[in-house]
Every structure is written in structure tokens, then in C-alpha cells.
């Protein structure tokens, strides 16, 4: 398999993320599948940012530790990544900033001064040098710049990129591969698009890493997608606005991270009692509390499974890559409306802000589901008892219907009641919705498996660790089992998937093994824990080594 890894590093504010995406674009142009991990501290200027871009002729979704090319804007980018450099690594550095390094030193200050170009074009010099090192033709480099750089800055970028190209030498040859030039999108962007696919009318959010870029992306594309995007005063307002929108008939979704989700929990519980649909994208980051805002974690699984006072059914899904994020965000929204339960799309910083080649055509769509609407006959009762627990919806403004929704225990018409029989019946009606949802999900791919059934060793994982696990499993000859749905837990599918599992390891980005705990709750043995809780995702090689010890 042909694959390349490139690291680009520098200070915050130097455009490392954008530069990384350009590098991914360069490889995409040659037909490669790409994945980018972006690592940055929570600050605006200074610090050390880096992106690892990996390109392969196969689908990937994780990084590896060693890199083929290291592009360094500062000394930290050399000193912090010595473990990634090997014999074959080509180092290109800004000779204006870096004092101790071996490789191609580009005097970037002089280059941009001579070319009368703005400092940000230094990224193009690095891109040019990378193209040369990889034996990529100058015309392809220029194509990529033309496709990404705004017209008024294009000439300056082309000149500076040319200087970078001329300053380096060819170290290897990136052969074009037979594949489409796929766009490179982040998990957040694709989650937003998936929600729109599912019928989203309005997205409501308050900024919080790692979910902010859903808000930014959808706000920026609101006209293109014909949606409303609202940024209210706090997360409490966010979820209440979303519920108001949905009560009046508009499909809405919200996005946040742990701290914001804390504020949403009373709204979540209100959604459950009032049976107003809402979809929450919950991007995890390490806690407790503010924790490490720009790093990754899978530490909120039991929080979202149990959040909100009282007992009520909910849908929780955890996509592991872009195709799953698209399909399951759409499905979450549709199922939330079909069954009038809150739906949570659980992601993390790795998936939310990671960039991947996106093949919309390769998405296996999940079934289209429509809400159950009132047929207009008889007296409207918002909480009418039905066999599957789902009461037909009408919205205010509908002639002949008085739509009464409430946070209190209520009767079928929506009036407050504390009568024993009525309270029990309405409670049971809500739980029937959960059972109906569970039955529906039996036809969905709620548990996925990768690799041969008779492998004898099985890696269990969820969410963004999917691709690191798939690659590690290939190296180890193991199988991967991944639950996409975490509530209602797909017990039957899980049982079936784990037949003949052999030795089992459970890989998670948390300190206590949260999926493992969920599996135990359902009576399954989760196997040996392989946990990482430093805020970083597993590199494939790192994970393979850890798993090798566990399976030894």
C-alpha cells in the first residue's frame, strides 16, 4: 500500500490547520485518501500547533507516529517531534526561525519580503517544497493553489510556492493513484450536512470546542442549504429555542460539548416529558470541567446515557467516520421525530475537527423516516395513547387543534395531572416509544464488524477510534466490532456480532472504560481494557503495540 505522512508545525495563528488542509488537497488531487489530525492548545497566538496529514491509496481515518516529511516553522516543531523522524524523513524548516535542524532550510522571511507577499504565504512555500520532495509536478501544485486560494492572493501564493519548490530536492515520488479527487471535510462539517439530509430546518448553538465549527460552517452555508442558524445567549437558551421551534413544527438540532451539555440537561428532560423532538450533537473533550478544551476524549458516554432528571427513552449514536457521521446524523434527526424522543449524536474532538476524504456517493443511507402527523379527525389530543406510544403531531396554527405541550405529568390532552392511573399510563406510553424505537433499530446496522469471523481475537471500540482499530486489527489479524447505537443498546446484534470473538480487547479514549461498563450492564464481558486518556487519539502503531501486549 502506498502511503505518506507529513507533519506541519508552527505557532498558533500561523494557519497550520489551513496549511494542513492544503497538503491533504495536494494528495487528494493525486487520487489519495487523506486523513488529518490537528493538534493545538487552547490559545490564539503562540504555543505549538501541528497537523499530521496521512495519505493512502486505501480508506484511512487515523495517523501514524513516523512521518516522511516534517515541515517546521519553528524550533518546537523540530524538538517536539524527534520520535517521528527516521532515516527516510525529509525535514524542511524555516531558516529564519529554526536554529538547530538538518534538512532544507528555507529563508522564509527573505522569500516573502523579496516576493512582496504577506507572511501567511509562507505556508505556500512549505507546500511547494513538499511537492518537490514528493516528486509532484509544479502544475499540480499550482492547480491545488488555484482551487483553494482566493483570486486576489493567488499570484503572491504562486510566486512563494515556486520559491519553496525550487529550494528543495526530490526525495521520493508520489505516484498518482486510480481514485477520484475527493473533497476533504471535517467531521463537524459532515455532521452538519447529515442533519440537513435528515430534514434540519434550524441549527441552534452556542460556541464550544470541539463543536463550534458546526455552527460556523452551517452559519456560513445557511443560504446555500436554506436553513436558519441561530446563536443565542447560552446553551440553556439553545435547547429551549430548539424545543420552541420543534413545538411549532420546525426540525431543529443543537451542538455542544460536555460543559454546554450540562446546561442543556434540564432542557433534555423537558424534551422527554413534553415529547418534543430534538437532536443534540455532543462533541466530547477531556474533563472534568473545562479540562483540555482542544483535545479529545470518550469520557461522556455515561453522562449522555443518563443525563436529565427522571427516566425516559433516548437515542444515542456514535459515528466513527465521515460516512457514519453523515448517515447517522440524518437518521438521528429522523428517528427523533418519528419517535418523539431526544437523539444524541456523540462525537469527540478527533472526529469533529479531524479532516478526512469524503465520498458522499459511498454513504450507505439509512431508511427515511417521517413523523406521525395528526389526520385532523376528532378532538386533537397531543398525548393520545397509541399502541406504539407515538402520539400524532399537530402544530400551533392548525385549525381545529389546541396543542398543549407541557413539562408536568399530564393527561392525553396535555393538562397537568397527578392522578395515579393517568400518570402511570402516560409514563408507560413514553416507554413504549423507546421499545418501538428499539424494534425499528433492529433493522439498522447498529453494530458493525470488520475482519474475518474466525480471527480468534476481537477489538471492541466505538466512535473515532474505529479506523485506528481497523488498521491495527489488520496488522494483528484481529476482528473489530463497533456499536453505532449505544441507546437503546442493540443487545441482539451485539450478541450475534460477538459469537466466536475469542480474546477481546476494548479500546477507548477514557480512563475507566465506559463502553466496557455499558457492556457489563447488559451482561456482556467487555474483555481487556486498552485505554488512553492523555487527550490524544491512538496512533495506529501505538495502538497495535498496546494490543500486541494484551493479546500476547
Amino acid at each position, binding site marked *: 500500500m502506498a502511503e505518506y505522512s507529513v507533519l506541519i508545525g508552527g505557532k498558533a495563528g500561523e494557519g497550520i490547520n489551513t496549511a494542513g488542509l492544503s497538503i491533504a488537497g495536494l494528495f487528494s488531487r493525486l487520487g489519495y485518501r487523506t486523513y488529518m489530525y490537528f493538534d493545538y492548545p487552547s490559545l490564539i497566538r503562540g504555543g505549538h500547533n501541528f497537523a499530521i496529514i496521512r495519505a493512502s491509496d486505501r480508506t484511512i481515518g487515523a495517523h501514524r507516529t513516523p512521518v516522511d516529511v516534517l515541515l517546521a516553522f519553528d524550533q518546537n516543531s523540530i524538538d517536539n517531534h524527534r520520535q517521528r523522524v527516521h532515516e527516510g524523513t525529509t525535514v524542511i524548516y524555516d531558516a529564519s526561525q529554526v536554529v538547530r535542524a538538518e534538512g532544507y532550510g528555507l529563508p522564509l522571511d527573505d522569500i516573502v519580503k523579496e516576493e512582496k507577499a504577506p507572511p501567511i504565504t509562507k505556508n505556500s512555500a512549505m507546500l511547494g517544497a513538499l511537492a518537490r520532495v514528493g516528486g509532484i509536478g509544479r502544475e499540480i501544485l499550482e492547480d491545488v493553489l488555484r482551487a483553494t486560494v482566493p483570486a486576489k492572493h493567488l499570484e503572491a501564493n504562486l510566486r512563494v510556492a515556486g520559491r519553496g519548490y525550487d529550494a528543495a530536492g526530490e526525495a521520493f515520488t508520489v505516484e498518482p493513484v486510480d481514485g477520484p479527487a475527493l473533497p476533504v471535510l471535517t467531521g463537524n462539517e459532515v455532521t452538519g450536512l447529515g442533519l440537513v439530509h435528515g*430534514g434540519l430546518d434550524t441549527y441552534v448553538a452556542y460556541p464550544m470546542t470541539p463543536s463550534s465549527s458546526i455552527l460556523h460552517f452551517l452559519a456560513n452555508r445557511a443560504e446555500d442549504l*436554506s436553513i436558519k442558524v441561530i446563536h443565542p445567549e447560552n446553551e440553556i437558551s439553545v435547547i429551549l429555542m430548539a424545543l420552541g421551534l420543534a413545538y411549532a413544527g*420546525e426540525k431543529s438540532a443543537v451542538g455542544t460539548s460536555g460543559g454546554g451539555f450540562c446546561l442543556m440537561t434540564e432542557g433534555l428532560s423537558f424534551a422527554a416529558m413534553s415529547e418534543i423532538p430534538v437532536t443534540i450533537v455532543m462533541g466530547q473533550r477531556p474533563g472534568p470541567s473545562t479540562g483540555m478544551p482542544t483535545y479529545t476524549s470518550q469520557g461522556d458516554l455515561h453522562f449522555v446515557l443518563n443525563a436529565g432528571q427522571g427516566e425516559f427513552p433516548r437515542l444515542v449514536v456514535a459515528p466513527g467516520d465521515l460516512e457514519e457521521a453523515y448517515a447517522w446524523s440524518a437518521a438521528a434527526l429522523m428517528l427523533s421525530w418519528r419517535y418523539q424522543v431526544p437523539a444524541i449524536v456523540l462525537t469527540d474532538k478527533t472526529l469533529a475537527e479531524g479532516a478526512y476524504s469524503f465520498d458522499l456517493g459511498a454513504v450507505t443511507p439509512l431508511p427515511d423516516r417521517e413523523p406521525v402527523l395528526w389526520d385532523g379527525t376528532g378532538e386533537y389530543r397531543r398525548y393520545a395513547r397509541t399502541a406504539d406510544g407515538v402520539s400524532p403531531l399537530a402544530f400551533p396554527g392548525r385549525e381545529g387543534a389546541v396543542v*398543549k405541550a407541557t413539562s408536568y405529568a399530564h393527561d392525553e390532552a396535555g393538562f397537568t395531572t397527578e392522578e395515579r392511573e393517568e400518570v402511570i399510563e402516560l409514563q408507560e406510553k413514553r416507554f413504549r416509544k423507546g421499545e418501538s424505537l428499539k424494534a425499528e433499530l433492529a433493522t439498522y446496522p447498529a453494530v458493525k464488524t470488520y475482519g474475518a469471523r474466525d480471527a480468534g481475537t476481537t477489538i471492541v471500540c466505538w466512535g473515532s477510534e474505529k479506523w485506528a482499530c481497523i488498521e491495527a486489527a489488520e496488522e494483528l489479524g484481529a476482528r473489530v466490532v463497533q456499536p453505532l447505537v449505544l441507546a437503546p443498546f442493540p443487545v441482539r446484534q451485539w450478541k450475534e456480532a460477538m459469537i466466536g470473538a475469542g480474546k477481546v480487547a476494548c479500546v477507548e479514549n477514557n480512563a475507566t472504560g465506559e463502553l466496557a461498563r455499558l457492556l457489563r450492564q447488559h451482561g456482556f464481558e467487555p474483555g481487556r481494557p486498552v485505554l488512553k486518556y492523555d487527550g490524544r487519539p491512538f496512533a495506529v502503531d501505538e495502538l497495535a503495540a498496546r494490543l500486541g501486549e494484551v493479546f500476547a
Partner: protein
Amino acid sequence: MTPDQPPGRPAGGLISPAQNTWCPGCGNFSIQHMMKSAIAELSEEEGIPLENFVLLGGIGCHGKLADYLNVNSLYAIHGRSVPAATGIRLANPDLKVICHVGDGDIYAEGLDHLLFAAKRNSDITVIVHDNRVYGLTTGQYTPTSPAGFKGRSTPGGITEHPINPLEVMLAAGATHIARGYTKKTRHLKDLFKEAIMHRGFSFVDVLQICATYFNLTDYYNEHAYEMQEGEVDTGRFESALGKIREWDYDREAPIPLGTFYSVTKPIYEEHFQALTAGKPDRRALVRKVVEEWR
């Protein structure tokens, strides 16, 4: 229990069958019946279909109004009905969205939402049942209780002074500000109708008698008066501010009732209306965004 002389139109169909549990003498009866009459009259006079009214309640004695009127309602959670109201109005511009809230509910638990709804000129109406005490939780001080108020959580009397909610609303950018009193029912109904028909954020603080925990009937009867035409220039911020400051909910002073401020400004929800007009094929739009990705 009904108010002394219901001056509104009879609208029996708007009273729901739910059993009423307010205390005898509670000011909520006046608010309920005047809102019922305001809705019935606006429906007839302005041709607004009854199904286009939506009431919201917070949590507190006031919120039961959502149960007691046979109108669309979202009986929300404590302090949070205002953002839900904005959401409803965002979804459907034809709806008249009326938020009934309590003083503990919205000046304590939900003040941030109230400020921001005013700031963004959300096209909703907020009616505050301001009895200046927590009723449903049985007698604690609220943000509009006067200094020295002895509640169950502050038996020694509070040392803090109340906020003047009208002044807060004026500062926050509310475009329609009024005060009513539950013993002046006809006046109250007119204030409701005016507030509901105002395009933009309208706010009515209703001095409401709490018969059980803080009965200020005699005090209000003695001090409250209806402002006369020309007493305040409702188009001028400074004039409104001066009149609003005549009484600060604390010291003894005449209490002006009526509309203090009413101006026209662009409505928050209108900015978003065009974005979702028609029935766009959003899946096609998604494909286009991905195909043209750069």
C-alpha cells in the same frame, strides 16, 4: 373565584375544563380572564384565528394559566419559557406568542433570557405575574421584593434592594414596556391587547396580588394610578426612563400604570424568515455543497 367585574367579552370556550387551584383572591384570576378577553377580542377585531395564539408558562403559580386557557400552550420549565417563545416565533411568523412568567421565574432563574429577548427585539409578548414573592414554593423573597421583606428563607428580612424590572427592560432594548395592576382589570386587558399587537418585544409587568404570602392590595390601591395622555412621551427613552423611575419597587411613591415606552425597530425573527422560505430540496443542496467543495 372570578374578578369582581369581568369587563371583557365572554369567551367561555377559551376556559379549559382543568380544575383551578389558585387561592381565593389570587391576582392570577384577573390576568387569566383579561388575557382570555384580550385574545377573544383580538381574534374578532383583528381577524387573528384563535389557533394562531400560543401561550407559554414558566413554573410557579402563574404557569397554571397554561392549563386554564383552552389555547395552544407550551407549559415550559422554570425561567426558560422566553427562549422557547422565540423559537416558536422563529418557526411560524403567523403566531402570536405570549409568554406568561413569574417574577421569581424570569427575574431570578431566567433573567438572562429576558434581557436577550429584549436586546434582540424578539417578536413575542412577555407578561410578568409580579407578585413579588414565591407562591408555589410557599413564601420566599424574589428579585422585586422590597428591602426588609421577611420570607421563609430570609426570616431576618432581606438587606438587598429590588430591581426595577421596567428600568432593566428599557436598558436592555425592549421596544414596548408597560405596567398593569390586577385590580384594574379593564386597563390590564387594554395593556395586554396593545402589547400583543406591538411588533417586536413587548413587556408588561403586572403588579399581582398574592392573597396568601404578600397581600399588597391596600398599598397598591393607595399608590397606583393610571398615567394620563401626555404624561410620558412613549417614543422617547429619557421620558420613559424618568417615568419608570418614579417608583423603584422599594420606597414609598406613586406607582404609575400604563405604557411607558413603545417604539418600532426591526424584528429579530425577520432576518431568518427568507432563509427557509418555500420547500427547498435540501438533499440536492447538500450534494451541491459537497460537489463544489473547495
